[in-house]
């Protein structure tokens, strides 16, 4: 992490300089990059995180961040199909409170010793008229239990990234699940059953 950290800092500065010089950070319409056949994008772990939100005693929203998330997504814009297979490192969860993190990792909640990763396999993609991703649907597996999950785009855009000299597509997605369906029942009903997922994702074209 340390090595890539300093590289990231250097490259992001270079990118900013390039942008400043007028290389252009403008968004490109998704279809402008449309090519025949499927394209596989690599997730950018620096900009791909899952945040879960759950209501605490009907009062405030408890949040935890999971990630960075690595993975790949394949999109065929012409055919309007896609394929996403994510391994989500649940054991990296971070709420800002070490005590809460430790509690959440226990067997009656996220059981991270036995199930350090969650999985999202989505093969149903919905696109808008411009070719942007509107929704991905598939199966989410947590604590070894698979349930259907839909992630809906709150925003989605592609840009030509000046630093990477590649197209980058991504956005903010949201989904909802009931933790009890996955057997994570501790604290019900004082800590809510409804879990709201907020997903930041960016993916880099080859």
């Amino acid at each position: 992490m340390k090595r890539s950290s300093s590289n990231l800092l250097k490259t992001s500065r270079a990118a900013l300089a390039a942008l400043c010089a007028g290389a252009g950070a403008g968004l490109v319409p998704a279809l402008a990059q449309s090519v025949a056949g499927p394209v596989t994008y690599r997730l950018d772990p620096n900009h791909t995180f899952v945040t879960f939100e759950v209501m605490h005693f009907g009062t405030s929203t408890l949040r935890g961040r999971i990630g960075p998330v690595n993975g790949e997504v394949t999109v065929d814009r012409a055919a309007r199909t896609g394929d996403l297979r994510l391994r989500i490192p649940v054991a990296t969860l971070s709420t800002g409170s070490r005590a809460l993190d430790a509690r959440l990792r226990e067997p009656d909640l996220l059981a991270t010793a036995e199930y350090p990763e969650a999985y999202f396999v989505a093969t149903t993609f919905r696109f808008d008229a411009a070719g942007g991703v509107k929704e991905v649907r598939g199966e989410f597996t947590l604590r070894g239990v698979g349930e259907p999950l839909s992630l809906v785009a709150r925003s989605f855009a592609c840009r030509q990234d000046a630093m990477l000299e590649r197209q980058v597509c991504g956005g903010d997605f949201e989904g909802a699940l009931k933790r009890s369906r996955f057997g994570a029942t501790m604290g019900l009903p004082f800590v809510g059953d409804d879990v709201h997922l907020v997903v930041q994702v960016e993916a880099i074209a080859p």
Partner: protein
Amino acid sequence: MTKFSLLAVAAALGFAASAHAESATYAIDPSHTFATFEIGHFGTSTNRGRFNKTSGTVTLDKAAKTGALDVTVDTTSLDTGTAAFTKHISSDEILNVAANPTAKLVANKFVFNGDKVAEIDGNLTLNGKTNPVVLKAQNFNCYMNPMVKREVCGGDFDATIVRSQYGVSYGLNYGFPDNVHLVIQVEAVKQ
């Protein structure tokens, strides 16, 4: 007891309760109080960072519908999930946390909607500069917490600030937005 006398007793109790209502002090619960910022990333996705350490006190008078707070955020506790991003935001190019290790929110105007806090108007000091800020409640509630056996009040608040007003102008000319969305979870324990 007749219905009438029950009502009379209830009214008398209600009167007594409000007559004796006083402002109570609540201490911020650091394990359920976090400020998160959200800022757009090249029009594509939203970058987030969370401050892990917050402390302070809130006074609340539910009968008089008034309140005040004095909360300090440890800016050195920033946590974005990416070491390089955390380091850069903490640097003197952006939040300069070495020179300004705390941010402060001081407010003495609470707006109520019924018995719930709906809005907090105060002053935010960030990067050594102070500007007025209005926090809107998305949720507000008080409950008896079975673990600490005390009343806990809290909620979810948000606000949009203009970072250049705090002297945080890095990257504005590269397309990083000036508007930053603050998302705040807060719970405070009655003392």
